């Protein structure tokens, strides 16, 4: 997927003025947030499980080379094929060569953000192979020629009316006067159409929520069952994974699974958790004849041993974006690449470069809600700050910001002058605001005052009041 993260500011303004999108985004707040809170409240051990999950992943990352090698030998022993890829181009090539060898005409796909990362769909189409997204949300956006705007709810930016219009435009073989008023009718129509696609497909591609070193297995977690039909019916099942999906044992995965659905959708457990180990076995009457795992690095190993290592604990639940005031306001497309929201703001600069994605870690108020709800306790705000530092060090920060920061740091290192200047400014702003206590407009602060009043300081600065002995609450 070609990054458009440099366009973040323009994308964000456009999103804020998009009435249709704003209506669609309203559902994020009411839905996911309350459901997660209820699910977490119902499990007394939830917070302790978060600590344990963090420790499991930390241990795994410290021994990642060994666990990967162990997983590979188990997966191979079960009859699976492992394809190691450093870059998206290598991963595309690995998938294409399997599909070509099998003379594949049609490929069904379960939901996978990594296949977005490597842009497999256009590559398959170029090779004359028809990629069919089967997750309902992914199917909807494929019809619309769009990319996912949320990692677990890819069509969250689309309203029901838009989906109805898309279905009428695409499914032209169905009667034009059919009733599609209810979402049930839309779900049923997609079900009927995709059913045939599962049966016709030569290859099924799914993602992987986890790879398990103990057994050489891959795991997918879904609610629709599309991933299961995708991987069970065709001749070959290709799992698209990255190195950070690794977890040591079945017990360790079980612990993390207790957090995943609760954090993502507020479910106690997703409808389907599927553990796959190799291809069809002797005596089996169904299942894929070939089982391949494409395991991609794409910059992740470069984050190990750095201040960004902790982000590799991520299990892609989406809680950080559901709770992010910035994501709630602009949706996922504005971020310009595969991973939106706080996780995207940390991961994207690591994967495609801070020069390309430096605006993303700046798109945060540091309110801290993402870290508060992250099941893996990833310190997302701290990492965004690290990216801002890197951006500043490599002189990518805009000139005006650098000058402003330079002035501030000059002033901050001269306490006498700093107190004098802030004292004058506080009194001046207070005088300007008058009795209302708020400013309607202020030179250099138009970005703020265009949308809301600026509360003015009440008079003397905190430090001045502290000095004069005014130390207790009045």
């Amino acid at each position, binding site marked *: 997927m070609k990054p458009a993260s440099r366009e973040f500011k323009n994308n964000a303004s456009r999103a804020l003025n998009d009435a249709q999108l704003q209506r669609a985004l309203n559902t994020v707040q009411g839905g996911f947030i309350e459901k997660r809170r209820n699910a977490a409240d119902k499990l007394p051990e939830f917070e302790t*499980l978060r600590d344990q999950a963090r420790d499991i992943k930390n241990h795994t990352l410290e021994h990642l080379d060994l666990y990967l090698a162990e997983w590979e030998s188990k997966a191979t022993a079960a009859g699976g094929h492992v394809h190691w890829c450093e870059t998206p181009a290598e991963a595309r090539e690995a998938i294409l060569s399997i599909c070509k060898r099998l003379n594949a005409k049609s490929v069904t796909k379960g939901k996978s953000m990594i296949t977005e990362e490597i842009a497999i769909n256009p590559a398959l189409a170029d090779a004359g192979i028809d990629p069919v997204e089967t997750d309902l949300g992914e199917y909807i956006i494929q019809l619309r020629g769009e990319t996912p705007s949320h990692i677990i709810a890819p069509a969250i930016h689309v309203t029901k009316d838009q989906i109805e219009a898309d279905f009428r435009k695409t499914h032209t073989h169905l009667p034009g006067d059919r009733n599609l008023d209810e979402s049930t009718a839309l779900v049923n129509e997609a079900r009927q159409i995709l059913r045939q696609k599962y049966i016709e497909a030569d290859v099924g591609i799914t993602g992987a929520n986890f790879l398990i070193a103990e057994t050489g297995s891959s795991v997918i977690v879904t609610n629709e069952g599309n991933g299961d039909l995708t991987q069970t019916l065709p001749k070959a099942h290709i799992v698209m994974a990255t*190195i950070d999906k690794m977890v040591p044992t079945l017990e360790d995965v079980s612990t993390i699974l207790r957090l995943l659905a609760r954090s993502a959708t507020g479910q106690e457990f997703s409808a*389907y958790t599927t553990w796959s180990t190799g291809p069809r076995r002797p005596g089996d009457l169904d299942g894929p004849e070939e089982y391949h795992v494409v395991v991609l690095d794409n910059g992740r*190993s470069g984050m190990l041993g750095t201040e960004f290592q902790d982000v590799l604990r991520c299990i892609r639940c989406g809680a950080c974006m559901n709770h992010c005031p910035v994501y709630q306001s602009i949706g996922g497309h504005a971020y310009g690449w595969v991973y939106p929201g706080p996780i995207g703001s940390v991961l994207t600069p690591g994967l495609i470069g801070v020069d390309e994605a430096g605006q993303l870690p700046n798109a945060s108020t540091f309110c801290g809600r993402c870290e508060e709800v992250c099941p893996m306790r990833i310190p997302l705000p701290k990492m965004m700050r690290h990216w801002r530092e890197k951006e500043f060090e490599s002189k990518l920060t805009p000139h005006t910001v650098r000058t402003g920061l330079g002035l501030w740091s000059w002033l901050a290192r001269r306490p006498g002058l700093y107190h004098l200047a802030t004292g004058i400014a506080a009194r001046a702003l207070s005088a300007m605001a008058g009795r209302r206590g708020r400013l309607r407009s202020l030179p250099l602060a138009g970005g703020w005052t265009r949308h809301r009043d600026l509360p003015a300081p009440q008079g003397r600065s905190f430090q001045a009041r502290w000095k004069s002995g005014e130390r207790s609450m009045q």
Partner: protein
Amino acid sequence: MSARDAILSRIRRATGRGDDAGRQAAVAERLKSHRRNLIPERGNIDAKARIKLFEDMAIAVQASVAHVASSNDVPEAVAAYLRQHNLPQHIRHGAHETAANMPWAEKAPALEVVTGPAEPADEVSLSIAVGGVAETGTLVLTSGPDNPTTLNFLPENHIVAIRASDVAGSYEDIWDRIRKAHGEGTLPRTVNMVTGPSRTGDIEQRIELGAHGPRRLHIVIIDE
């Protein structure tokens, strides 16, 4: 250097710090002992309460539940369920001996019973679960000729029979059971954990059942 070696050696440089023997021992120990982490107290209850919790949790995610006294009573329960939902008297199951030994002809003479993997036209399937997890009302099914995986996903109506004594408190209890049956360090080709029927929230976050997998999940608990 191959991509594999390049990736692994980059990881080793970033995390290795030279102590290869110590790291290898730590990894081998963790995999061998597969120690349990914290298990929620919720499932740590006596057998009767555990089955009740399993049932309540399954119903909470829109599964339906029936009890029968013995596996001989399953055919009647299945036929009644099909009548209740106006479904054809036709089911498919795998080669599992529990299903094969049920008195189908005697107890449900109008019911047509076929075996094998699911076909697209099948409307109802029957599977035998290896276990259930009370914690979340989850069924655990393993692949093989006994229970072909397609039976779990292709038909619109999935009936699963489970012995009450196979309902465990936690996922971890099930792993131990599967290790005992299949050996350490491996799993059956597919292990399906099923918690309620198929669903989607992809249209404006409204939950709709039967997105791709079964619209209905009916659990028959064999109390014997």
